[in-house]
Structures are given as structure tokens and as C-alpha cells.
């Protein structure tokens, strides 16, 4: 059975702020995801094709190369940011626990 939440308010606040930060990170990264894949790769591909990058028309490059590279980087950034956030959250909880016990 999943560990039930501690009833004290402190943990609720820590969990709440953790969740808010998580949602913010997620929203920013998903925005970039949509802009690179669906935006540059599809919606604006015809416009971007006037420019070129490394011998590729730019819109074509985004559809077949660029978007994939952006996706890989996005997940890397997500893993780094979230794992740091997890650590901070853990420290918050430790502090609150210590503070509550005093």
C-alpha cells in the first residue's frame, strides 16, 4: 500500500510547492516540444524552407533532423531538472521533519 500522507501541514506545503514547480518545468518543456515538432516541423515548415542549414532547407531539416535532436535534449533537461527538484524536495522534508521534532 502506498505510504499515506503525513497529516501535518508542513508536508502538505512541501508537496504542494514541489508539484507547482514540477508543473512549471513541464509546461515550459512541452511548449518547446510543440514549437520544435509541430511548429517548426509542420506548421511553419513551408515558410522556414526559404532558409537553409548545412545544405538542408530549414523546414525540411526540422521535420527530419532538428525536431528529433530537440526532443532528446528536452528529455535530458527534464531528467536533470526534476532529479534536482527531487533532491531539494527531500531536503525540505528533512528540514520540516527536524523542525517539527524540535
Amino acid at each position, binding site marked *: 500500500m502506498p505510504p499515506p500522507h503525513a497529516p501535518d501541514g508542513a508536508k502538505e506545503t512541501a508537496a504542494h510547492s514541489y*508539484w507547482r514547480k514540477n508543473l512549471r518545468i513541464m509546461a515550459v518543456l*512541452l511548449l518547446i516540444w510543440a514549437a520544435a515538432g*509541430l511548429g517548426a*516541423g509542420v506548421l511553419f515548415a513551408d515558410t522556414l524552407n526559404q532558409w537553409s542549414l548545412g545544405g538542408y*532547407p530549414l523546414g*525540411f531539416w526540422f*521535420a527530419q533532423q532538428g*525536431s*528529433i535532436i530537440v*526532443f532528446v535534449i528536452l528529455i535530458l533537461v527534464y531528467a536533470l531538472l526534476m532529479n534536482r527538484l527531487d533532491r531539494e524536495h527531500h531536503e525540505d522534508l528533512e528540514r520540516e521533519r527536524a523542525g517539527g521534532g524540535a
Partner: protein
Amino acid sequence: MSIKAWTFLFVGVTFTLYLVIAWLARVRDTKGFYVAGQGIPAAANGMATAADWMSAASFISMAGLISTLGYAGGMYLMGWTGGYVLLALLLAPYLRKFGHFTVPDFIGDRYRSDTARLVAVICAVFVSFTYVAGQMRGVGIVFSRFLEVDVAVGVYVGVGIVFVYATLGGMKGITWTQVAQYWVLITAFLTPAIAISLDLTGSAIPQVGLGSALSEEGTLLLEKLNQIHADLGFSSYTEPFIGSWDKLNVFCVTLALMAGTAGLPHVIVRFYTVKSVSAARWSAFWALLFISLLYLTAPAIGGFARYAMLDGLHGKTASELPAWFETWEQTGLILWMDDGDGTLAYTGDERNEIFRSGAMSTAAIGELKQRHAQWLRGNGGEDGRVVLRQAGLSGPDRDIIVLATPEMAGLARWIIAFVAAGGLAAALSTASGLLLVISSSVAHDLYFRMINPKASEERRLLVGRGVIGVAVIIAGILGIYPPGFVSQVVAFAFGLAASSFFPVIVLGIFSVRVGTVPAVAGMIAGISFTAFYILGSVYGGMSSWAFGIGPQGIGTVGMLVNFAVTLGLTPFFPAPDQTVQELIQSIREPEGVGPALNIDDSVEAD
């Protein structure tokens, strides 16, 4: 050594390797069988996910598809990789924290409903079976093309191998075999790509090569390709939105593939096998990184092969044709129907003389060739070009692009044989992952959670092994006698997954308000709408009445229908009870992951 001897050698060596791994990774309990004991390191899980994900279709057909579609091929590339971003950000870490065995498990527990669980089981089994039949067929085809045995014999061998390592080692055996299969398939894919890139452009990096100038002429490869396309009456290679692939359709297909990827049960369960929430995030990163190696290379192979094919064939006489043409003409993947001038024309209009045999039998093709020869001599017969064009068989089969690339680049025989081993690795790894989903859905969700919750550990393991054994055999039968709809339905599995699982799981995690009735209604509405539209357009001759969106992209609309129904009904039904509220809170919070829940504890929690 001949290509055939090399192929036997590579196939023999790799298959032995898979069996040895299976023996070393055999398991004794249900946790090992379903989620590999939840002790797989993130990078290894990433490789296994990549092999699981990249099927026979990704390996053999995708580069050919891009080669034929040009820009529009990008929707498959973006769709099948972009889905991992959704998976990593919206699903993987939370489902790992949840810590059970399957996708129906989550849906059943979050919505506290056996109806929801049952609907999820049916969706998972349906999606997985349509997918796995295509994989077994792929094994048979690789065998028949490289070893000249019957497709059925190839399927028997594939069934035998998967049967042994899936029943013996369950998820654990499958995972470690997939790690080995990943290396086989990626090496087999990259080697010819690098060689042909060096040959055409002098660059050892295929992705740079595609943007470079041709060594012989000095013009940019993509510009040259566009120019040849224009001369020969094909539509532009790099310009977007031509013909039926307008902006709306490309957008909808891309989005449907993305959401579908994130909703496919055999991919989601891979994230249950790692140690922690943090490892689930890392493993999503590794998975996409390993997948991107193949997905970034496929467009390069597509472009190179397109050029090599047009440049090597058009305007040549029989004696000037490259050697690979003759080899592959025997397989029917490519056919030449001359108009009488002795020079081959490969164009995008009615002058075209290049075709494929498609589903026509060897005998039917032979007869057509004879009638065509009669027509050329002017005594009766008929124009084979018109017959094939009307049958929709213009141009070579797209599978030829990957299969014949090593020969086009003039590579050594052993590399050609290695590509065969790579294709088999891709097909087998995906098949085994799907079979495990079928087994866990039936043996765990249906049998244990719904029919006989008192079953002992030994009995559950036995049922799990039994179901996977039966599923392998059914998959084999579907591979030998493919029902007509399989090849088409595989492409639609994504639409079905996008319109059923994806919204329900996302809302289950990110909303504390959505209750059982709205979720089940949304799931049923989404999948019924999508299935109805697909079946209607493919078989019923229904027009694309939803804004001209084709059946491949309709999953996007189905997903919106699902979201709309669920969210629209939510205010009228009660919020989930306290137990579920606590479940959601615990999923959202990374603390207290520890070792995963024991399956028996998880039942007490109900």
C-alpha cells in the same frame, strides 16, 4: 563465402546468443516475470526500450517510406520520437511511482472500476495482437528473402525462439535479450548508411552527408534530388504539403503518432522495470537517445537510396543496369516493363517502367510478363505497364530501400548478411515485448485481479507462462496466414492508443477531480469514434468528412473527443473517494519510492 552462407552464420550466432541470455536470465516469480524484478539499470532499460520500440517496420520499411514521401516522411520521424517527450514528462515517472505491473492495473486502480480495467485489457490485447502479427510476418519475410526458404518456415523458427526465451525468462529474459538485439540492429543499420554516405558525398556522418554536395558533381545532394524529381515528373523531395499530404493531415498524423506512442502499453510497461522514479526519467532519455541513432539515420538512407535508385536506373539499357537490380528483380520487389525502346524509364508519370509485384503471385507476374512481351511484338497481349499502374503498383517496393542499400553501395557480402540479422533482431525484440503485454493483461489483470484473486504465486506464474505460450502460437498463425486487415491496422493501432489510453492516463495523474464514469465514457467514445472512422474510410468507402482528415490522422480527433467527453461529464459526477485521492497524491510525489510494491500488498490495498 556466399551471402547465404554468411546469413546462416550471423543468424545462427545471434540466435544462439539470445538463447544463452534467456537461460541466464530465467526467473522464478511473477515480479521477475512481469517487471524483471524492477532492477534493470536505466541505460540498459533504455536500450531494451529502443529495441522493443523499433520494429521490423522501423528497420525495414521506414527509410523506404521517407524515400518515397520526401518531406512528408518527417511525420513518422517526429511522431515516433516526439511521443517519447510526452511519455517522459507526462507518464513514465508517475506510473513508475504507482509501481504495479500493467497499464490496465493503473486504470483499474485509479478509477476504481473493473469495467475500466476490462476496457483497458481489451484495448491492450487488441492493439498488441495487431502489432505482433506484423512482426512475425516480418521474421518470415526476412528469412524468405535472404535464405530462400518459405515464409512459413521463417515464422516457425521465429515462434520457436521467442517461445523459449519469453516463457523461460519473462520480462527479465526479454529485457536482456533486447539489449543484445539493440546492438545487432543498430550496427546493421548504421554500417551501410555510413558506407553509402562515404561513397556518394565523402562524409562519414550520414546526417552531414545528406546536406553535403555530391562528390562527383559538386551540387548539393538535396538540390540535385529536387532537380531530378522535377525532370522526371515526381513531386519535390524537400517541399512540404504536396498532394493529399496537406498541412492539416501532416499535423494530425504527427500528433496522433505522438500521443499513440505515449499510449502504447508495451512501451509504457518498460518503465515499470527500473529501480526508481529518477531511473524512469533517465531511462526515457536513454531510450530516445538510442532510438534517435536510427531515426536520424533513416532520412539519410532514404535520400541516398532515392538518388542512387534514380541515378542508377533511369535512362540505362539492360546491359548498363547495376548488379543489385537483377538480384532484387527476382524477388518481385522491383520490376521493369519496357516500352520497347530498350531504355529504362523511372518517372512519376505515365512513361514510368518501374513497378513492384505487391500481392500478385509469381505465376501471375510471369504470365503478365509474357503478355507484355507479346504486346511489344505487336501480336495481342496487353501493356503490362497499364495493368500494374491501374493496380497501384507503380514504383519499387519500399522495403527494397533498406534491404538493397548495402548492395547499391557495393558493400562486402557479410554486411549484407548482417542486415538480415538486424532485421530479425528488430522483429523479434518487438514481438517479445508485445507478447509480454498480452500475457500480463490476460494472466495478471484478467485472471488474477478479476477472476481468481486467491491464486497462488506458482499458479499465477504458470498461467503467465501458459498465456505467453499460447499468444506466441496465435501470433505465429497470424504471421503465416495474415488476415488482410493486419498491415493496415498496424498503422492505425497508434490512432486507437491515442484516442483511448493516452487521455485517460494523463487525466488520471493530473486531475484529482475526474471520476470513473466520465473516464470510461471518454475512453469508449474516443476509441469507438476512431475505430468507426478508420473502418468506414478503409472498408466502407466513407469520405473523409472530418475536415478532410485521413484515417491515419483521425486518432488526433479521437483523442480530442475523449478529452472533451471526459471533461464535459466530470462536473456531473462525484470526485474520486479518499483512497484514490491519496493514491494520486502519492503518485505525484517522488518520496518513499524504495523497492517497488510487492504484488500481494498491492491487492490488500484494494
